[in-house]
């Protein structure tokens, strides 16, 4: 068998896609949240004229600019990964998912690229109204982009609305059914909320860092920490609820995935236990050292203590996903979700006691939990993507039949190149972001423009136009 460092071409192609997409998704997850956060900050500033909001807007705008750029360049890679490593999938599923992705380019990239320049540079040049509109359009653009791509992913999980042609291609029959496939609304809600929660914890972590460093009287620091903790308190429980809904939807359409998430190798006639821990042994088809709470899984999934739940013993071995990965990544995600909820509740208590800006243990917890959203998001994607295996289009096209006719060495070499280069390039970007975060937002916070640098997007920058037409150049405030 053709292998590279012991892996075959399909495994390497899966590793490459998993690596590049996981790396990529970190940036949109943050920019979806930050774009909305910035729009809210700007709106609050226009409404209240409170300087703290403007200060925070400028502070986070700089971080947003770098995050967005890294999202763009790592995203271009994704639009070619389908063809390079998954050419059979591209050929067969292209007629269904290709148009959705083309719509993503046409509807979302246009909005983002079009209004980013005004958002970043244009406050004084286009007036507050149009500037606010630009902020909203960028936020909407990131959400539209997520909507299309999640529709594609959801269709791969719960495909419908197509037929299979003579040449083996999937032929679209009903676009409405394809786009609004059964898992799409749940996945969209769960993922967008995850992006907001991830961003809230990053903002909260940065706020906590500066509170711990003695910036308690800085109104920017206070405001961002307070806003982030409200988000944690409100959105974390909402996210847990949405996750539960998503899980019930998955149980209906992809039961094997839920069985792997739960570690249910065996069927349970009268209520299935919720396993908290255990070592899945797929060879032996059992969960070793299992610690579980009786009947709780049935209660969560079926809302009935005694509801029967089928186990992996009802699924042929060659239809089962890799249980250990799904089992553990699911627990990482859920564990972090409840830790986020705990921070949110902790903050409510501190707020009630009037010690939100003084409670050092809350700040320490928020700081440690700063990157937790990113980990939870990646763990969640691993759960749902590995849980779809052994299919790439669930129930229809096997992953092992979807890859490109490539040699293992070709895929392996490019994988190594991606890993090395991504760590160098994005490591540098993260270092620049951390450098920005290390400074507390200050009175008269500088915007993107006064730092040495180019105008950084295809967006409209009316500055030059104003200069040419002889207007005074206002002191930099945006």
């Amino acid at each position, binding site marked *: 068998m053709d292998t590279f460092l012991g892996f075959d071409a399909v495994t390497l192609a899966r590793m490459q896609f998993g690596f590049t997409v996981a790396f990529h998704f970190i940036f949109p997850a943050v920019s979806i949240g930050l774009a909305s956060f910035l729009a809210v900050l700007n709106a609050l500033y226009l409404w209240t004229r409170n300087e703290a909001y403007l200060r925070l807007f400028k502070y986070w705008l700089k971080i947003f600019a770098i995050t967005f750029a890294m999202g763009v360049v790592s995203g*271009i890679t994704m639009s070619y990964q389908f063809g390079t490593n998954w050419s059979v999938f591209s050929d067969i599923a292209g007629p*269904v998912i290709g148009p959705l992705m083309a*719509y993503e380019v046409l509807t979302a990239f246009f909005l983002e690229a079009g209004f980013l320049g005004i958002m970043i540079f244009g406050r004084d040049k286009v007036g507050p109204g149009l500037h606010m509109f630009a902020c909203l359009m960028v936020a909407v653009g990131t959400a539209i982009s997520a909507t299309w791509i999640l529709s594609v992913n959801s269709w791969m999980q719960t495909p419908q609305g197509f037929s299979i042609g003579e040449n083996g291609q999937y032929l679209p029959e009903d676009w409405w059914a394809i786009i609004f496939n059964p898992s799409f609304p749940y996945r969209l809600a769960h993922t967008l909320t995850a992006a907001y929660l991830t961003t809230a914890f990053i903002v909260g972590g940065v706020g906590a860092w500066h509170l711990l460093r003695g910036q308690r009287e800085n109104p920017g620091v206070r405001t961002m920490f307070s806003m982030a903790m409200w988000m944690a308190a409100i959105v974390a429980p909402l996210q847990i609820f949405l996750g539960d809904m998503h899980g019930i939807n998955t149980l209906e359409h992809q039961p094997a995935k839920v069985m792997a998430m739960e570690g249910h190798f065996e069927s349970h006639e009268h209520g299935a236990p919720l396993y908290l821990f255990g070592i899945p042994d797929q060879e032996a088809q059992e969960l070793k050292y299992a610690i579980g709470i009786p009947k709780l899984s049935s209660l969560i999934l079926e809302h009935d203590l005694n509801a029967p739940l089928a186990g992996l013993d009802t699924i042929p071995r060659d239809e089962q996903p890799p249980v250990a990965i799904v089992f553990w990544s699911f627990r990482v995600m859920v564990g972090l979700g409840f830790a986020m909820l705990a921070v949110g509740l902790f903050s409510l208590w501190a707020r009630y006691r009037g010690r939100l800006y003084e409670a050092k243990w809350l700040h320490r917890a928020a700081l440690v939990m700063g990157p937790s959203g990113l980990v939870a998001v990646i763990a969640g994607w691993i759960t749902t993507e590995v849980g779809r295996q052994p299919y790439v289009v669930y129930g229809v096209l096997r992953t092992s039949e979807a890859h490109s006719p490539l040699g293992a060495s070709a895929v392996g070499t490019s994988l190594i190149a991606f890993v090395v280069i991504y760590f160098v390039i994005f490591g540098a970007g993260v270092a620049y972001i951390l450098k920005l975060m290390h400074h507390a937002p200050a009175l008269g916070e500088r915007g993107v*423009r006064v730092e040495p640098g*180019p*105008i950084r997007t295809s967006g409209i920058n009316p500055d030059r*136009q104003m200069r040419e037409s002889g207007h005074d150049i206002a002191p930099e405030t945006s």
Partner: protein
Amino acid sequence: MFYSIDLTVAWALLLAFSVFVYVVLDGFDLGIGILYPFFREKSDRDIMMNSVAPVWDGNETWLVLGGGGLFAAFPLAYAVIMPAVYPAIIAMLLALIFRGVAFEYRWRASSRLSKRAWDAAFIGGSVTAALAQGIILGAFLQGIEVEGRAYAGGWWDWLTPFSILCGVSVVAGYAFLGACWLNMKLEGEIQHRVRVMARAFFVATIIGIVAVSLATPFLGAGYAARWFGWPQIALTAPVPILIGGIALLLLRSLFHPTRDRLPFILGLVLFALCFLGLGISIWPLAIPQEITIWEAAAPAKSQLFMFVGAIVLVPIILAYTGYAYWVFRGKLDPEKGYH
């Protein structure tokens, strides 16, 4: 099914248009990176990068549209071409990452050394991306082995003297476009040096065009018949004649003391004619000598669904892009740049 045939042609033209827009737009800003080694002063490099900083991001979006559109409208072609030129595509993507982040990081780097490193990333990324794009074009023209619905050739089939010739020609062509762009945007002493570059790369580009044109008919019988068979020759002959005419006008414009925009505009025309020549060689094939656009086409329902959106959205994108260029028109102030 009659309308589906029209749709397929329409999509082929729309994709060809996207790729052409990508080639000329990203062509000149990749060209800036290719020209970087000839300008060692930091102030020169700053102003060169600033001349494309407002537009490069949007320019690159056309590449995503080209790739995404090919996937959506001609999935079979996408599925065959990508594995066939796999290493070149991967190299191009990684090069574009280096080039793209250099625009951001170069200005945030605090030490001299890291600034130099991002300069090197900008140069290496630009040259590699241009070279890879030319090689992909060459590999496409020389033919791709297909069996059933999949690529059936070897891993290094794309690497031939012909594809390397195409790669080097594209590097020269992009550098030429970049020099013409700078000639239009800059003034003073640096403009003089840029113009010398433009002349040198003009000669290299013409050599590349002639060499690729002469080599193409020998790649397969199909090409010779297309170009030299009767009666097509009545339609094909004007293309090389026009290219020759434009080349002469370009040469004159590159020595004209004041008409700074003309070389860039004529450069775009030259690229458009070369593109037309490639179209004559390829039409109506999606994979030369193997698969036609109709065989590679997605079902009519897919193409129609997208076409409805594209027909509305592409003009909006064009209008916006045109406006962004209009906002940034004219000479760059070396003191202020754009910031």
